[in-house]
């Protein structure tokens, strides 16, 4: 028995030292279905704004990073289960998510909008945003467990909210006519619908929505106990903002500053 105990402790020791050396490598998860922020390129690699930002942050932190793909639904459970150490997947900082995980400071903040067919008769307010009444009876597609789902459920009470596992699938159903409108980030909708095949029939309605259920912008998600990692990410975001790296990445994808105010 004693021998066994010694053997076990040696094994545990070996395992834990192995884990320590592996921990220097930071695994960062992204979704790969939310262009232009994150998507799978033709060669199978993960690319996009989130991925470029994550790589730039790692460079500043002098950390060895690996980008891994993770379905949206499993993002927070996967982080908590230590399958990876951080999330760079356009995840907005919300009070709901903060109960489970922690975030770096924001690295971008863009408005959410409604996209629908050009010829859809939707009543709009002074900002051109569709009103609650204007969307009455319509099917609005959102990605499950996003700020957009929360916002749509809270505000468009007379519409049917249809939830999808990914933005790509929701976009496909809008173009195919299964749903009447999509609510999502403006840049994701421009890339996913307006620039895609059949996108000519659609348009963005209004300047968009901010605040409230839509959160405080997008940050890097980390486990609550990893406060050091969180602060390193925040510091690195400041650094790439200051030294122009952020602008370079931003300009590769967008023609305005995605960082927001």
């Amino acid at each position: 028995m004693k021998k066994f105990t010694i053997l076990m402790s040696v094994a545990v020791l070996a395992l834990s030292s192995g884990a320590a050396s592996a921990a220097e490598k930071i695994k960062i998860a992204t979704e790969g279905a939310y262009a232009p922020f994150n998507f799978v390129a033709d060669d199978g690699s993960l690319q996009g704004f989130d991925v470029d930002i994550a790589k730039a942050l790692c460079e500043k932190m002098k950390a060895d990073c690996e980008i891994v793909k993770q379905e949206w639904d499993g993002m927070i459970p996967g982080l908590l289960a230590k399958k990876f150490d951080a999330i760079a997947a356009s995840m907005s900082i919300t009070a709901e998510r903060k109960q489970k995980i922690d975030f770096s400071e924001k690295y971008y903040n863009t408005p959410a909008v409604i996209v629908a067919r050009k010829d859809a008769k939707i009543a709009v307010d002074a900002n051109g945003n569709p009103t609650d009444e204007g969307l009455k009876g319509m099917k609005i597609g959102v990605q499950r467990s996003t700020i957009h789902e929360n916002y749509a459920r809270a505000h468009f009470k007379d519409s049917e909210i249809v939830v999808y596992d990914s933005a790509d699938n929701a976009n496909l159903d809008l173009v195919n006519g299964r749903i009447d409108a999509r609510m999502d980030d403006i840049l994701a909708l421009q890339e996913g619908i307006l620039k895609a095949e059949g996108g000519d029939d659609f348009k963005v309605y209004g300047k968009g929505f901010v605040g409230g259920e839509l959160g405080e912008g997008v940050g890097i998600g980390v486990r609550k106990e990893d406060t050091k990692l969180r602060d390193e990410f925040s510091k690195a975001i400041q650094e790439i903002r200051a030294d122009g790296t952020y602008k370079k990445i931003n300009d590769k994808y967008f023609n305005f500053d995605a960082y927001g105010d």
Partner: protein
Amino acid sequence: MSFDFPLIWNSLPDLLGRGLVLTIQLTVLSVLVGLCLAVPLGILRASRNPWISKPIYIYTYVFRGTPLLIQLFLIYYGFGQFRWIKSTFLWDFLREGFWCCLIAFTLNTAAYTTEILRGAIQNVPHGEVEAARAIGMSRFTVLRRIILPQAFRIMLPAYSNEVVLMLQATSIASLVTLLELTGVARVIIARTFAPYELFITIALIYLALTYGIIWLFKKWEQHLMRHLGERPADAPQEGALATR
């Protein structure tokens, strides 16, 4: 890891309400319509004429030889790509995820059931058919009075498995936005980030449903086999269908 029992309790109304109802709807409808399709197809499939049996074999081969998920995606995403379909009445059905699921599930279970029935028809003892013919029954009467009732008894254990598999297959309906049991669970998981609690709960619900199906088939089989009367104690148990 702490296990959140209150969360399970609070989720039950949603899971057992719309979630369970939709799961049962999908299972019952696809199995019933599938069986109605499978009876004529199975009879034709058992035909010795290759011009009749081969085309049906191609159908069952395609639907048994490809994953149900791919069939569902082909119907859901594939048909949406064709503009001409959208201008017909078909689109009124294909627009809805529910109908896409029902079509995919029905065609899939019909293919399996056709082959199960074909096997059963071919296993009806030849002597019984000959005897029926010898007393002057027409081909159709033999089919109706002898072959089909016998084949049905033979196929029942295998068919109960097919129904159980179909019940479990309905979980993929959640991938095309339907909020059946798995879909509802995934919505709650997305809100609470508690996959263990929810998946264990719905696993138990599926187990209970499966038990119900097996029990029903056992009763049904006992009813159909009642003419066999008491069996000696060392004979194989009738209720062996669960282990088949």
